[in-house]
């Protein structure tokens, strides 16, 4: 009689291996566990990547999710943390060549979820003083995309009448903020992206401003700063 740890390790292995058939997994009732676990992983991934699900369709998503699970089985009990490598997994698949934006759309689904689940910052200053530092709000997520993935993503968040989408095939910059309790997604420009990048490590306002102004001399940096603070993307420390 194997001890408990062995039994559990065997059980876990057999859950993931569809082809295993031994004294344990050969039992008829074992399929109940196997199927329930697979379903849990597939549906958790679907819930985390709703836009990818819409793009490829339910049936295909299920199969892609099963393939993903074989490579990246769940590592913990928190389902929202499952699927963190899905975007890079998609980018590696040969078939995504025909859907080149798919991996970036997956990335955006992930950023939305991270923004949604982030904790509130401890304290937010409301006023600026000399020597103030600015930092990203914990729920702020942003990305530079080499595809019009944000336009595609946004079109799916309001899919009514999505008959045809003909986006401009160029880079895009995306920002997710969480004013209050709901996530807001917006398309931003390169100078705004640069400003957010300058705030990844908390920095004095003057430093942030000069970093953006040096790279984008024609940008209205004060307007950008104001927008970033007003939207809650950055906070004053």
């Amino acid at each position, binding site marked *: 009689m194997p001890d408990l740890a062995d039994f559990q390790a065997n059980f876990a292995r057999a859950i993931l291996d569809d082809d295993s058939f031994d004294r344990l997994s050969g039992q008829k009732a074992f399929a109940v566990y196997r199927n*329930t676990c697979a379903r849990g992983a597939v549906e958790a991934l679907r819930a985390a990547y709703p836009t990818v699900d819409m793009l490829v369709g339910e049936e295909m998503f299920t199969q892609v999710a099963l393939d993903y699970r074989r490579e990246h089985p769940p590592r913990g009990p928190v389902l929202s943390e499952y699927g963190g490598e899905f975007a890079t997994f998609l980018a590696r698949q040969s078939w995504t060549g025909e859907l080149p934006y798919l991996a970036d759309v997956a990335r955006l689904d992930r950023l939305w979820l991270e923004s949604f689940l982030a904790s509130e910052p401890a304290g937010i200053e409301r006023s600026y003083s000399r020597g103030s530092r600015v930092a990203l709000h914990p729920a702020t997520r942003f990305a530079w995309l080499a595809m019009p993935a944000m336009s595609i993503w946004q079109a799916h968040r309001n899919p009514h009448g999505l008959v045809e989408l003909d986006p401009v095939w160029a880079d895009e910059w995306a920002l997710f903020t969480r004013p209050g309790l709901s996530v807001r997604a917006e398309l931003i420009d390169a100078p705004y992206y640069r400003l957010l990048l300058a705030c990844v490590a908390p920095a004095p306002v003057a430093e942030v401003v000069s970093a953006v102004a040096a790279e984008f001399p024609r940008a209205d940096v004060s307007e950008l700063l104001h927008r970033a603070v007003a939207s809650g993307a950055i906070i004053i420390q």
Partner: protein
Amino acid sequence: MNKLTNIAVVTALTAFAATSATAGPAKPQPNADKCYGVSLAGKNDCAAGPGTSCAGTSKRNYAGNAWKYVAKGTCTAIKTPKGHGSLTPKAA
């Protein structure tokens, strides 16, 4: 840093100081519970909805098989430089 940049920095800081006192993110609404991830994606129990039951008789078999990917979603509505999303089967 050149002179133009210096001017831009000073202007930006002045404008920022003038506006930021009133600016700020919206306050979280009190008494609004946030839906955390576990319940958001919490579909792993045996009462997961139609098609499953505690007897384990899922209508859908989630076992992997030699399946070919066929995209049937909205990707067909999106124009790329190479044309529309494909509907052709692809080897997994």
